[in-house]
Each structure stands twice: as C-alpha cells, then as structure tokens.
C-alpha cells in the first residue's frame, strides 16, 4: 500500500485541482508565436482592485468602467513628446484593424495629474481618437490601479516648474471584461505587434 501512496496522493491532488480549473473557466495559457516579441500573458488574469479616477469629461472612471468589455490601457503623460504619442497613434491604428472588436475601450491614464487636467486630457486623447478615454486621479487612487500592473515612474527636472519629464513604464495593458489584466505588451510598440497580439488574445480568452 505504501508503494502506491505517492500515486494515490497525485490522483487525489488532481481530483481537487482539475475541477477548480474547469470551474474557474480559465483556458489553457495561450502560446503566442515566437515572432511576437514583448507580449506577456497573465494566466489567470492579474486582479485589479477598486479605484476611482476622473475622466476627461470630469466624470468618475472606476474599475466598473473596465468591466463588460475589453480595454487597451496605456500610462503616460500628455507632455510626453516621443513615446506616448507613438503608442497612442499605434492604438488608434489598431482600433481600426479588421478583427479587432469594435467595442474595445482605449484608455490613457496620466501619471501626471498636476499638469494633466481633464481639459488637457480631453485635448490630448481626442487628438488621436475621439472615442479614446483619458483619466487621472490622486496619487493614492492612481497607485491602486498602477501597483498590480507594475507601472513605475519618476519625475525628472524641476517639478515646481511646468517643464519636467516623466520617465515611466510604457507598456500597453490588455484588460479583459472582468476588469483584470490579461496581458501586457512592452514598448517599442508597432501596429502589427499590438494588433496581432490583441487579436490572438481576444480570440483565445473571449
């Protein structure tokens, strides 16, 4: 009997684990083609806590607004000259690709609430796409959203002036309809890379 104990334990273990896996509905982790670089999938999704930001129309933007649809999220600052406009332009082009769900939500979160007022955010996001949402909030509320995603940033230059830059983590996050993080894509971003990754992830996990 002792001889079979490890096998019995393994089978017993599987009997406990397998139903939980099926019940949670978590599919097998998607294997992306090796040609797609810098794309990381969270299996199961990374939970995001409740948070309250303010959007570009001065309305609250909470975790509930991430639910029920897929979202692409980018963190940055509106005065960013190179990286943020590049990733925003990429997201705009991705939104127009065939096979990309039309009800996808595109969100720009500013980590620079001091300068990026809702009015400024509105000007910034609508320049790239009228449907894009801009949001920011207090440091504490931003932190709730950013921390599980691993968004880090640092202010460089004189922040008491109007002339400083923000060094920041510049990934595009893919959030699933539960409002949690399903994947992230490292920069530099291209339309082909983000578009293909998002389509494959959406098809697999929808």
């Amino acid at each position, binding site marked *: 009997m002792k001889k079979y104990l490890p096998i019995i334990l393994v089978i017993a273990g599987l009997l406990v684990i397998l139903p939980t896996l099926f019940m949670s509905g978590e599919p097998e982790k998607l294997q992306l083609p090796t040609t797609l670089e810098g794309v990381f999938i969270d299996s199961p999704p990374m939970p995001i806590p409740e948070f309250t930001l303010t959007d570009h129309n001065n309305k609250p933007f909470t975790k509930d607004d991430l639910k029920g649809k897929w979202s692409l999220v980018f963190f940055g600052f509106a005065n960013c000259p*190179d990286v943020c406009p590049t990733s925003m332009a990429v997201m705009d082009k991705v939104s127009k690709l065939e096979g990309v769900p039309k009800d996808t939500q595109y969100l720009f979160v500013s980590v620079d609430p001091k300068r990026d007022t809702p009015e400024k955010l509105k000007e910034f996001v609508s320049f790239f796409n009228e449907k894009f949402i801009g949001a920011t909030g207090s440091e504490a509320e931003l932190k709730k959203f950013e921390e599980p995603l691993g968004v880090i940033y640092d202010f460089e230059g004189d922040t008491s002036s109007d002339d400083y830059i923000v*060094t920041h983590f510049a*990934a595009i996050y893919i959030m699933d309809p539960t409002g949690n993080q399903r994947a992230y894509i490292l920069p530099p971003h291209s339309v082909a890379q983000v578009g293909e990754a998002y389509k494959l992830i959406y098809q697999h996990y929808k």
Partner: protein
Amino acid sequence: MRLSILLLALIFNTAAVASDLVLEKGWIRAAPPMAKNLAGYGELRNNSLETITLKSMSSPYFKKVEAHKTTFVNGMMKMAHIEPVVLKPGEQLIFKPSGMHFMLMKPNKAIVENLKVPLTVITHKGDQFVFEFIVRK
C-alpha cells in the same frame, strides 16, 4: 581661364558642402495644440569623408531643438540628451519613433499637419545646413 576654373572650383566646392550632410524623410509627428514638446524624425547622413560634429540645431518655429534618444530598460522609458551628435564619414543616423529623435521644444506657432518646418544645423567646422520636416500624423 583661370577665373573660370576658380569659379568652377567654387561651384563644386559649394555643391560638395551642400550635400555633405543630408536629412531625408524628415517628419514631425503632429501633436495636440497644447503640446509643449514635439518629436522630429528622419535619416541624417554624413556624405563627406570627414567626421561631422553638430554644434547646434535650431528652428524658427521652436525655442529650442535638441537630439534625444529614448531607450527602454525592461519596459521603462528613459530619455537621454545626445550631446554632441557625431557622424563618422558615411554614417547614417536614423531618427525614429521610440528611438533617437529631434526634440522640438516650445513651439511659437501652431504646428499643424502638412506644415513644413525648417531645421538649421551648424557643425563644429561652421558649416550650415538647412533641412525640412513635414508635419504628419
């Protein structure tokens, strides 16, 4: 005769200087009107047989122009000021999104799509070159 040779030499010399440094495919990414900094891109090539070191860059539409380079370290964006920009003989520097770029600071006019933006570059030897960017999305 001597004069014409001299003239010819002058013409050729000027022509050579004029094409020693070229900027091709110059463009600026159109930005929202509130943007304080814009980024310019293009291919800068040293066609001469000597190393070219840039002393200054300027544009009448901006307060300041600098060469910057974006790098990503594990997804973290960092920006460095490239000073000075040096091009070895025959070397081409590619300024592209999320890489090396011309940082165009504090515009003094609306930088709208299709606007042509001049860029003046002065080298350490004192040669002056004027390039052009086109603004597009």
